[in-house]
């Protein structure tokens, strides 16, 4: 029982991550392989030891002091809880309105300049980069260099189910 894949299957069996059919196969295998049985016991002992025995620690600041820091930071950043934005935001539109509208008067000149700038300097984002329009969205980027594939996984930061409440906009996982 030295096969790593088999070891992981054994672990998945213990964690209840196998289908009924796969679990039955592992049970059969366990009945015949003492080494596998011993490994399962070790994994079970470790899991049992950890369950409900997470080290306890208390925040080393008084309630008042800790709260005062949070309160100050909240006040600094804006007083009210933000309203949810159901779909990716209009922040780009707001940005365009704020920054580009004053340029309408010189639109022809700007267009020419923008055209020249785009031709000579390329896009704002470099190749392989991405930007999210909404703060409510997060993303993971996975790159498979060998297969020339870039996968961007988008998620709603606010959704508890998504498990990702607040990660940076881009996280890169790259494989060779």
């Amino acid at each position, binding site marked *: 029982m030295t096969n790593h894949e088999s070891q992981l299957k054994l672990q998945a069996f213990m964690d209840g991550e196998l289908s009924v059919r796969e679990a039955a196969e592992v049970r059969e295998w366990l009945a015949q392989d003492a080494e596998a049985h011993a490994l399962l016991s070790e994994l079970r002992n470790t899991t049992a030891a950890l369950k409900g025995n997470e080290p306890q620690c208390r925040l080393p600041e008084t309630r008042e002091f800790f709260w005062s820091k949070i309160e100050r930071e909240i006040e600094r950043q804006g007083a009210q809880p933000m309203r*949810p934005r159901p779909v990716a935001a209009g922040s780009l539109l707001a940005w365009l309105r704020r920054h580009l509208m004053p340029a309408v008067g010189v639109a022809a000149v700007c267009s020419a300049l923008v055209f020249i700038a785009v031709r000579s300097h390329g896009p704002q984002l470099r190749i392989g980069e991405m930007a999210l329009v909404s703060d409510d969205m997060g993303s993971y980027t996975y790159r498979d260099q060998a297969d020339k594939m870039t996968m961007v996984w988008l998620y709603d930061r606010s959704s508890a189910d998504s498990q990702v409440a607040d*990660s*940076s906009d881009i996280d890169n996982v790259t494989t060779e």
Partner: protein
Amino acid sequence: MQPVKPMKSKPDHSSASDEQLVEAAKNGDMGAFEELVARHRDKIYARAYSMMRNEDEALDLSQEAWVKSWQRLKQFQGESSFGTWMTRIVINLCLDQLRRRKRQRTESIEEMDEESGGVERQMPVVTANPTERLERGELRKKIDHALGQLSHEHRTVLVLHEFEEMEYKEIARTMGCSIGTVMSRLFYARRKMAALLASLKTED
């Protein structure tokens, strides 16, 4: 004669449920939010500490998590408990911090060993239960000590699986890696933990 003004008393939030406090906080009641912070602050800090293993970082990240949760409170629809939602926020802030740290680090042989298992692959199976007959406080101390010796990758996957009770798929999404990587990391983390707990027993 001036009319006597009634004294403005601070509302008592201590008897309110988390759900009631969340609703009040959504309407801008900072007192209700403070009560939520007071109730869950140790748990949130403990989670940050278990992942970062550094008091200052854990303190900063838990504070940041509370500020973020205030900002995003209206997005919390009660699909999970408030405590779970908060824990997810702090976990993701910790993961962000660890990723930033990893990006600054150059890849070393030890890091490559993290994925492939390194020495854990050849470790003999720990046959006796090393935590048997240990008192809970003592066991927790040993676990804490052993967790401190794991790499961030191994510790995180162990914390998410054993303490947060996440499934493989959830962990993969949270950590931004494949299920295979989660399984592998969890396996080696458990094996290393078993060896560490066994060695701690013999040291005593």
